[in-house]
């Protein structure tokens, strides 16, 4: 009736109850089936529908896959083999075309004896990316480094790389693995130098331009250093100007002179020999690498409280995002020559890379803007209160954090861009999907093959993009966890 009642219920457990197994219908394969596949009429229908879809796909495509021919010199021969082996009218896949032309799907017209160079450049790319993309988890970085080192070396050996190169690659890759274990931030130096190295490996030629570019950056840094006491802003402008002017004026001649004095060159490969996935990856990686700084500048400009700077950034970003990439590629191939001084003429691949960069930069700017916006205001205020000026605050406090948050977005942008590199076929470049396939089919032997190249190329795209998207999802999850 009252308080007393409550007091009578006092209770103390003397012995604890051990955990018991759940009732049987909670476990076992049958219960799994019941719960996951047949838990209700709707679910059952969906399951049957799913089975129907699977059955349809298998029944329609299985025999085609099963009747694969790997060894033939032409489509006609393929057809003949299929007819002989599985009877007249049988359908079958003619993978022989891939067997014969795989190199062009992967490397385009890159000289066959030099295939190891792109492979090496790609392997080094992994090393260069490791400290950036896999900076958090030592274990993942170790796996990535070791696997890519091993793969690169094996592939290079298979592709007949000379001993010198093998040794060079081995030193770099094993060195990277060791450094990653000992003092990972040093790998960043390699990341910074990688663009020059990668360009050299891919295009070959003299190493001097690379060295000269480095030297001019060094001079620009010197100029900055000299002036920074006077005015940081002025110093930055001066540093950039010195570097740019040296690039435009001095690097070329100086490199030639140096090359004459001390030859330091490997076989040059023109960019019109690039094709297939080599082209896609080159455009994709170059585009993303170049668009990152541009995107950062655009994002900062867009967040600026200076009206004009903000407006210009918005206009630029919205314009680029508002038109299809294909029109920008047209601009690269058809209009860029109108816009440049008469007589200038440069490589179509370079032009395409420029347009792709601009395109990606607009998207990148939005991604990075998101990262910037995700930083709490306190970080800006703390930087201000410590007396850091705008650029120092950005460089030391804001961007390192914002970029880290943005990595998943950057990876997604890269995936999109990488897929979009197939559009370069519309300006006459040999993308792996249509460009290479079209000229392969322009050959008499392979006229009429259709599905096999598509499946081959599609599978490679899928593997690359899927693994990247998984990686970015993994990052996203981890970032979300960290933010809590």
């Amino acid at each position, binding site marked *: 009736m009252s308080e007393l009642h409550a007091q009578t219920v006092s209770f103390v457990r003397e012995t604890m109850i051990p955990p018991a197994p759940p009732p049987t219908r909670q476990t076992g394969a049958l219960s799994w089936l019941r719960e996951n596949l047949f838990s209700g009429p709707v679910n059952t229908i969906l399951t049957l529908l799913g089975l129907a879809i699977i059955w349809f796909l298998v029944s329609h495509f299985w025999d085609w896959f099963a009747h694969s021919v790997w060894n033939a010199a032409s489509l006609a021969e393929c057809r003949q083999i299929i007819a002989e082996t599985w009877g007249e009218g049988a359908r079958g896949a003619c993978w022989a075309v891939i067997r014969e032309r795989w190199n062009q799907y992967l490397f385009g017209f890159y000289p066959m004896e030099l295939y190891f160079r792109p492979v090496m450049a790609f392997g080094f790319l992994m090393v260069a990316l490791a400290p950036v993309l896999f900076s958090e988890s030592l274990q993942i970085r170790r796996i990535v480094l070791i696997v890519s080192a091993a793969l690169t070396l094996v592939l290079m050996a298979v592709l007949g790389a000379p001993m010198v190169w093998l040794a060079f690659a081995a030193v770099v890759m094993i060195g990277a693995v060791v450094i990653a274990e000992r003092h990972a931030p040093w790998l960043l130096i390699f990341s910074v130098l990688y663009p020059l190295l990668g360009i050299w490996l891919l295009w070959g030629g003299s190493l001097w331009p690379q060295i000269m570019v480095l030297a001019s950056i060094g001079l620009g840094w010197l100029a900055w250093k000299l002036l920074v006491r006077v005015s940081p802003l002025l110093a930055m402008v001066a540093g950039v100007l010195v570097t740019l002017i040296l690039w435009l004026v001095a690097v070329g001649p100086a490199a030639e002179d140096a090359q004459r004095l001390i030859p330091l060159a490997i076989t040059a490969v023109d960019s019109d020999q690039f094709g297939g996935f080599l082209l896609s990856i080159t455009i994709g990686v170059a585009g993303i690498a170049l668009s990152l700084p541009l995107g950062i500048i655009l994002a900062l400009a867009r967040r600026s409280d200076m009206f004009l700077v903000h407006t210009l950034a918005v206009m630029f970003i919205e314009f680029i*995002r508002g038109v299809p990439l294909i029109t920008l590629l047209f601009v690269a191939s*058809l209009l860029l020559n*109108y816009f440049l001084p008469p007589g200038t003429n440069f490589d179509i691949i370079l032009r395409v890379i420029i347009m792709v960069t601009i395109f990606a930069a607009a998207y990148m700017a939005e991604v990075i803007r998101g990262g910037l916006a995700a930083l709490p205001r306190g970080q800006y205020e703390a930087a201000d209160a410590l007396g850091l000026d705008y650029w120092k605050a950005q460089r030391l406090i804001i961007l390192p954090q914002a970029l880290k948050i943005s990595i998943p977005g950057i990876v997604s942008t890269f995936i999109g861009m990488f897929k979009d590199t197939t559009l370069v076929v519309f300006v006459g470049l040999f993308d792996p999907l249509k460009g290479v396939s079209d000229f392969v089919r322009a050959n008499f032997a392979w006229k009429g093959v259709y599905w096999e190249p598509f499946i081959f190329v599609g599978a490679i795209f899928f593997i690359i993009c899927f693994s990247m998207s998984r990686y970015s999802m993994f990052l996203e999850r981890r970032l979300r966890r960290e933010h809590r």
Partner: protein
Amino acid sequence: MADISAPAATPFRLSMLLYDRRYRSMTIQVFVFILVMAFAWWLVGNTIQNLRVMGKDFDFGFLGQRAGYDIPSPPIPYTSDDTHLRATIVGLLNTVIVSVLGCIAATVLGITVGVARLSNNWLFARLMTIYVEMFRNIPLLLWILIVYAIFTEVLPPPNAYRGEDPAASMILFDNVALTNRYTAIPSLGMTNNPGDLDLGYRILINWAVIAFAVVLIGGWFLRKAVLNHAQKVQDATGDRPVTWWKNLAIMTVPSLLLIWYFGLHLVPPELKGFNFAGGLNVQNGFVALWLALTLYTGAFIAEIVRAGILAVSKGQSEAAFALGLKPNWTMNLVILPQALRVIIPPLISQYLNLTKNSSLAIAVGYMDLRGTLGGTTLNQTGRELEAIVLMMLIYLALSLIISGAMNVYNNRVKLKER
């Protein structure tokens, strides 16, 4: 309280241009402006000079010339004698048509798949995941080509429908013929044709279409009125009157009456000569492009929808259940309104992407803006500068319209926060 006393004016010194916050931003902006202007001036200067060197000019006069090429199934009357301008408009309309239909279908597909991925049916959820991953990670161009190739390779040619014992037969009660050129569907015939409204420029709209439009729009408003009324009744008495049959009647009865009045009937396609005639032949290029765009964008939308639903925390539905709300009310009153806020902005940028991606139409020979203005017209007239600039501007305008709509929506639904 003292009023604003103007800050003491400090005398202006030149160094303030760099070191005074107020002037510094001005200085930077002027500097940026000069830089941008110089760059623009340089571009324009180069262009003028280049045009002179090549002996060309910048002139849109070519749009008035005879186009000379044909466009399959133009949405407005068009022949090869029409001008490039009209060809451009046809292309633009084609772009808009495939984009709009693509957006609608992709939304439906995306929502279905997005929800299916959340279903607790293991098999189906997996299948949907495979679909989404396949389409997200393989270039769109490949999908367009594949879908198109499937259409050409798998479907029978119109020929197969010929003869006593045809190899293929029409479906849906002999109304639809799927061929590897087009899908022949019935067209609408009228026994009581009210004639056309001439909009000028050889654009005709049948009065019956207008009548249907009026009836449907009217019905939509009426439906709103019914719902409002139901809401009022619910507010007053707590019980919500049943409205579905009223709505059904409002939406169907007037249309049925109109159908009866105009004597609307289906004219099934018939094989005449090489092709089906009588009905409508929907080009496979269009269908393939539409389907590929739908499947591709649908995969992205599915992810958006899934993320949107997942973004509404589990606590929300638990709170609703704890209050005694039934699952379907919980969905309608609690989950969806919140999920939509998360879903709509990325959804619209997918619409934007779809519209831009429709420029790949050329791969299947669908004559969209890129195929007409940026393709044949450009090629025949050699006016690349004008054609591409115009094409970019049109795409830009389409994008701005879409993103404008998005901004309006975003501002309307923004959650109020502290």
